[in-house]
């Protein structure tokens, strides 16, 4: 026998009440844990995605920077194009190491009728900005060869050597490389030479963006300033701006999510205080008896606080467990709410966050048990004898 068993035995006396309170805590901790895991994962995945782009900034047609971010990371239909001649103008700046024209668009595949994201780029330069890419096969060298992202290959059942036709074109493209999984949007692209992409899109002298890498990363801002001044009608978005821009868009949704979880937590805390308080009021005579047989005020205080702690910590463990096993589902729900999310897996079990949740619950348990425990400790033995 110890104080925890006494507290536990009392919880068993009202199983339904105790169970409902534990469920309420589990749900709120689960929401809290999931949203925090998502927020942490969101920043991490976004950073990974941006860094994975392998460039320092993009020269794009003037417009909304969020649209640019979406174009760079997810692919999309861009209403405006840049003149390809701008590539040479950009290259003229001595601080620039690489400037690569890019065409990004969506186009259906003839046989499957699936709309796929096409990434047209100078293939020899692509390898230099993506040195860490791993793939099966050999990297495409000529205009009739393509590389396929991991997800597309998996989803469409594409194998090395397969030939793919695009709607509106008679010629076919041979798959020479299938990328290993990167965990980013790159898994959903088909990479081909920019000439081939232009032919499919039927845009001969136009491109969607120019990807730029400077020789020295410390010169990014000065290079951006120089190019903006020298070339009219362009917009330059650094990868850092993209990161900040997307983070800001996501932040308001994150704040809403955290607010909801805090409200859920407050509601369940009120529930626990109520349940423990009811339990104390029902046991006035029992506490009186305990005091009469020698229990100190602090002994009674401990029994009541332990009840609240047991409810909260068991609820916290269950909540963390639910979040962990239901992470995929929760992530899908949150992704449908958030305006922009990285394509890679965001919610991953974070042991530090899990421990923090349980420890916080332990602390809140002590706080919530405090008032009912104080009331219980004030009960005098006379209460028992009065019966």
């Amino acid at each position, binding site marked *: *026998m110890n104080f925890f068993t*006494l507290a536990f*035995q*009392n919880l*068993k*006396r009202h199983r339904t009440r105790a169970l409902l309170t534990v469920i309420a805590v589990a749900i709120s901790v689960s929401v809290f844990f999931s949203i925090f895991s998502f927020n942490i994962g969101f920043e991490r995945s976004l950073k990974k995605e941006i860094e994975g782009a392998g460039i320092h900034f993009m020269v794009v047609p003037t417009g909304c920077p969020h649209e640019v971010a979406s174009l760079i990371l997810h692919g999309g239909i861009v209403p405006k194009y840049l003149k390809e001649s701008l590539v040479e103008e950009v290259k003229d700046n001595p601080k620039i190491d690489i400037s690569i024209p890019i065409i990004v668009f969506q186009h259906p595949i003839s046989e499957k009728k699936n709309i796929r994201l096409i990434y047209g780029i100078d293939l020899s330069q692509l390898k230099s900005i993506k040195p860490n890419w791993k793939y099966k096969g050999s990297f495409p060298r000529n205009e009739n060869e393509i590389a396929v992202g991991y997800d597309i290959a998996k989803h469409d059942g594409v194998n090395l050597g397969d030939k793919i036709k695009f709607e509106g074109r008679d010629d076919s493209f041979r798959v020479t490389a299938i990328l290993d999984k990167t965990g980013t949007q790159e898994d959903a692209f088909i990479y081909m030479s920019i000439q081939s992409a232009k032919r499919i899109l039927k845009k001969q002298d136009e491109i969607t963006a120019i990807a730029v890498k400077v020789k020295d990363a410390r010169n990014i801002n000065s290079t951006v300033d120089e190019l903006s001044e020298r070339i009219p009608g362009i917009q330059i978005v650094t990868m850092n701006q993209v990161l900040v821009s997307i983070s800001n868009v996501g932040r308001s949704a994150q704040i809403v999510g955290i607010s909801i979880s805090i409200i859920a937590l407050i509601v369940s805390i009120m529930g626990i205080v109520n349940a423990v308080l009811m339990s104390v009021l029902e046991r006035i*005579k*029992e506490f*009186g*008896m*305990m*005091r*009469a*047989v*020698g*229990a*100190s*005020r602090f*002994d009674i205080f401990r029994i009541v606080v332990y009840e609240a702690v047991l409810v909260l910590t068991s609820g916290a463990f269950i909540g963390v467990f639910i979040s962990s096993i239901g992470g995929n589902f929760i992530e899908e729900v949150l992704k449908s709410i958030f305006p922009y999310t990285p394509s890679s897996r965001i919610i991953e079990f974070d042991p530090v966050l899990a421990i923090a949740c349980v420890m916080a619950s332990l602390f809140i348990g002590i706080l919530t048990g405090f008032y009912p425990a104080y009331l219980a400790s004030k009960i*005098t*033995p*006379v209460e*028992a*004898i*009065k*019966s």
Partner: protein
Amino acid sequence: MILLKKINKYYTRGSEIVHALREINLEISRGEFIAITGKSGSGKTTLLQILGLVDKASGGNLYFNGIDVSSLGDSNLSKIRREKIGFIFQQFHLIPKLSVFENIALPQFFHRRKIDKERIFQLLKFVHLSEKWKNSPEQLSGGEMQRVAIARALANNPELVLADEPTGNLDSENTERVLELLLKINYEGVTVIVVTHDMEVASRAQRIIRISDGRIIL
């Protein structure tokens, strides 16, 4: 063992001040078996509460084993209660989710002592409930529950056992068994004070203290 000098007790009931005990002077020697009787509201339970150190007198002095305990704080009084005094209540007050064994061990637990299993089984034998040590109180009859409460009162080898209407909820057969146990306890040297309405129970005591309107009457 216990000496009460000019004990007064007031309490408020709504706006009314009730003078529950008036100038009580009483001496109780070690090993006595005392019955406190009186009508409802006469002050007998209030006197028991003060004797058991669960309530404080409004005036006067109470000496327990020669020590004036009138001005002691709550923790010191708790200590004396758990070491020296055993309580038996009319309503038994057993904890339903604990076993018979655990209910009896409760005073030892609050004494911060390792549970003396041998002592608990000895007490179970004493109250004739050895077979039911694993049972929950809900599985016991009223008489059995009161016997568990008696065993619990004896768990810490008290010098004084206080019983508030211990037979109030029992039939005549169980009343007799409980009385026999209380007499046995007293025979072993423990001072027993019983508050009762039942003159049959009171007649078994060595001394009867009658209370009326907060005064001891002779």
